[in-house]
């Protein structure tokens, strides 16, 4: 091989190797470590861990509960998300973009914040109900501390997820397919039932699978609503075991986390099998359908939609704000009692809380920054690479995010419980283990927009630079990065918003000194200090709002669909 050839291939190989190392470290290694713990605890093959897990009645109860709330939440999310998608996409409803923004909003709010907000709305201490004197007497059980409460909130949280996927499908539906049916004499409802919904089954099933995985892996909602009622699902069971037993019970929790992984995978698999049975691929591209004229029903439908948005978004947030202004539990909110003390307390006075703000901010920034840097080369290999194994690459980056967060948390614990070999560096019980888990889990959030950014760029731009004599790294820096930067940075901002109030992973990985906002919020709520928890929630929601507005500035330079709340 001549030197010139070696030179030009050298940079590509360095890039590929670097990407491979990152992915092995962040994705494959933790998964393999977790599996090893199950099948070969202590280094030798044995079924002890599996047998012990299967023998425990708590495992079976939690599994049953996980399935109940998972399926219930999925059904509710699919029904509401599909209904809203059909109404918003196919009818001449007004103020569409505002509706989309508001309906998708709960997706951008952390589940435990949603849970807290709803709890504040209905509990006996509810400042909102007290405004009308409608609060139940103190000591009454909050109706949300129940199976149906968990299912309701999971449906509210993930309905928007279904909405986004179904709406994307509906927009690709060629209008001729609808018009041919109408010309054939079918009224609007018949068209919906016989043409639109059957054609949407792939989108709806994919959305259902995604919602199922999210419901099954959700920690915040069953933690806030289920633990007080002693209704445990697998993620909360793992949390309780670890909180009580520490590293000694890691083997046991490893089994439980693999169990969640299997349930989630089963959901995805079921979707794959069902969608393979019937192929509804739509080949032609065309304009999307003319909106159906609701006529005299329009005001009623619009009112219904806004009522739904008020109930799922504005009321809970309003309740949250009210609670954060009340000086103490059960006190009614009046002009006299209203106070900002709770905010002052969590920001400046309470050590763990102020530390948590600091920790969460820099963890989110670090995770976002790193993900943007790594997403550009990985996206390059996936979008423009010619190798076969890139599909595998994509899959392995998706895995830590597709699987429930507890799975990755347990895997990280197992990996870093002992000091890293050769170096002796100890990550366990430090904030770094949380950073590691965030990097692994959220990388895909930056990667997806980056890849769609690559697909929009004409490859000739890079090839022109190549002809001009620029090597791969030079091209990366001067041509490719500037071109995909908006998409990658938007992905980074999504990571920041998600990581800022993240709870699932940090609940299992935190230690004294490395608390995150989510963790402190959770412990306030568990200790009965809802006011402080509410104040922290309001701050994070406000930060998220502001960041959404900032990210909107990037919108003109982004491929469509990168920002979920933009219509």
């Amino acid at each position, binding site marked *: 091989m001549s030197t010139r050839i070696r030179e030009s291939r050298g940079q590509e190989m360095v890039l590929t190797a670097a990407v491979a190392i990152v992915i092995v470290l962040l994705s494959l290694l933790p998964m393999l470590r977790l599996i090893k713990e199950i099948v070969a605890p202590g280094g030798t093959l044995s079924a002890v861990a599996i047998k012990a897990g299967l023998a425990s009645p708590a495992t079976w109860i939690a599994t049953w509960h996980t399935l109940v709330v998972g399926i219930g939440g999925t059904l509710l999310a699919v029904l509401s998300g599909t209904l809203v998608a059909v109404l918003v996409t196919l009818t001449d409803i007004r103020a569409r973009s505002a509706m989309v923004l508001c309906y998708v909003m709960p997706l951008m709010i952390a589940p435990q914040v949603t849970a807290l907000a709803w709890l504040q709305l209905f509990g006996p201490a509810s400042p909102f109900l007290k405004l009308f004197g409608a609060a139940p007497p103190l000591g009454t059980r909050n109706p949300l501390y129940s199976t149906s409460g968990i299912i309701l909130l999971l449906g509210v949280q993930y309905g928007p997820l279904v909405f986004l996927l179904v709406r994307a499908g509906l927009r690709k539906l*060629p209008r*001729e*397919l609808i*018009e*041919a*049916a*109408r*010309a*054939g*004499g*079918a*009224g609007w409802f*018949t068209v919906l039932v*016989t*043409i639109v919904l*059957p*054609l949407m*089954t792939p989108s709806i099933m994919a959305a259902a699978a995604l919602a199922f995985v999210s419901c099954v892996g959700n920690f915040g909602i069953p933690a806030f609503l289920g633990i007080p009622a002693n209704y445990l699902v697998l993620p909360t069971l793992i949390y309780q075991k670890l909180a009580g037993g520490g590293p000694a019970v890691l083997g046991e929790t490893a089994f439980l986390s693999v169990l969640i992984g299997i349930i989630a995978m089963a959901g995805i698999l079921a979707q794959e099998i069902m969608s393979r049975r*019937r*192929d*509804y*691929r*739509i*080949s*032609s591209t*065309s304009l999307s359908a*003319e909106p159906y004229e609701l006529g005299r029903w329009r005001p009623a439908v619009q009112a219904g939609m806004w009522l739904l948005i008020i109930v799922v978004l504005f009321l809970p947030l309003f309740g949250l704000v009210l609670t954060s202004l009340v000086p103490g539990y059960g006190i009614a909110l009046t002009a006299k009692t209203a106070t900002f003390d709770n905010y002052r307390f969590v920001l400046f006075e309470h050590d763990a809380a102020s530390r948590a703000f600091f920790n969460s901010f820099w963890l989110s920034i670090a995770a976002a920054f790193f993900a943007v840097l790594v997403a550009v080369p990985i996206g390059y290999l996936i979008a423009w690479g010619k190798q076969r194994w890139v599909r595998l690459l994509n899959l392995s980056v998706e895995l830590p995010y597709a699987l429930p967060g507890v799975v990755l948390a347990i895997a990280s614990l197992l990996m870093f419980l002992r000091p890293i070999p050769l170096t002796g560096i100890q990550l366990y019980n430090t904030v770094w283990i949380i950073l590691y888990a965030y990097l692994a889990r959220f990388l895909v959030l930056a990667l997806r927009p980056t890849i769609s950014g690559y697909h929009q760029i004409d490859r000739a731009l890079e090839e022109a630079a190549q002809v001009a004599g620029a090597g791969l790294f030079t091209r990366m820096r001067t041509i490719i990065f500037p071109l995909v930067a908006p998409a990658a940075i938007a992905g980074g901002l999504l990571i920041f918003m998600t990581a800022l109030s993240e709870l699932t992973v940090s609940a299992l990985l935190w230690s004294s000194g490395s608390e995150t906002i989510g963790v402190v919020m959770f412990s306030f709520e568990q200790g009965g200090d809802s006011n402080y928890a509410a104040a922290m929630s309001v701050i994070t929601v406000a930060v998220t709002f502001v960041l959404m507005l900032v990210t909107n500035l990037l919108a003109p330079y982004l491929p469509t669909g990168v920002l979920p709340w933009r219509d």
Partner: protein
Amino acid sequence: MARLSLDNVTKSFANFDAVKDVSIDVADGEFLAVLGPSGCGKTTLLRLVAGFEKVTSGEIRIGNEVVSGKGGSVAPEKRRVGIVFQNYALWPHMTVAENIGYSLKVAKLDKAVARRKVEDALALVNLQGLGERRPANLSGGQRQRVALARCLVAAPSLVLFDEPLANLDVHLRASMEDEFASFHKRTGTTIVYITHDQAEAMALADRIAVMDDGRLAQLATPRELYHEPANEMVASFISQGILLPADVLSAEQVGHCKIRVLGTELIVRCRPGERPRAGAKICCRSADLDVSPDGPGFDGLVKRVIYQGGSAHIEFTPSTSPDLTLHFEQPDPVVLESGAQARLRIRSGWLIPAAGAAS
């Protein structure tokens, strides 16, 4: 079957008029082609007739019923109109038989009757035995036939074709054209056929409506369109007619008048009642031009000769008006050469009526 009338139909979108003041009467059982360049409003016209768009002003009647007008708009599903789409629009989640039988199922027809009708429709388009296939497993021509069968099965009062052959290859086009023609003959259905291909329109239609920029440029039989275009747009659009400036010298007599074009005098065909005027235009075809080295005619420069097999495309500039370039075809043996001087003679032509003259 029913007749279709459009009265002064206008359709405006946000800031432009897609269809402007169009009036067309389609007789019962007539095959009307709507022809025009892309963006001329022909697809909007079809969507107005089908009821997918609402008229801004004017009125559309199918049979004796006003379906679009001031009083509102009859929903598409109530119009009994059949449509064949350019991209076929077959539902991928249904078999061929289910696709065809859809309108019968919607109308809650007896199952056995429906099945027989679907069989008949399949036979009509020569697709017997393919009822259980999925549309994805059919060829382009077969899909087009399914689409045709689907719109026929409900016995619509009117069938609309939206560029049905645009997605097919050249060979298939010719055979589908034959099928459409024989289908029209057999069923006698009123048809409105949208196309941008004038050969297709000429071959199939009883009459052709040429549209230009939202307006109806001319509505006439294919023969009349070719020989007696009503305006410059139609003259140049149909078979690339050659337009030449001319002065009318004499009034019309038995369909002819005397004109002066490029310095020579000539007798051309014209509408009744033409009077002498300046600044007129005539339209002539390649076949009307002769190369006449010695006889009467006008001189000029042959700018370019592009041989195309069997004939050549000639660009010619008359010496009397150097700004003008004539494009025409000369069949073999091609005698003109690039850069040479030549003398042409116009044998005949058509005087384009003055703008605004009643047709």
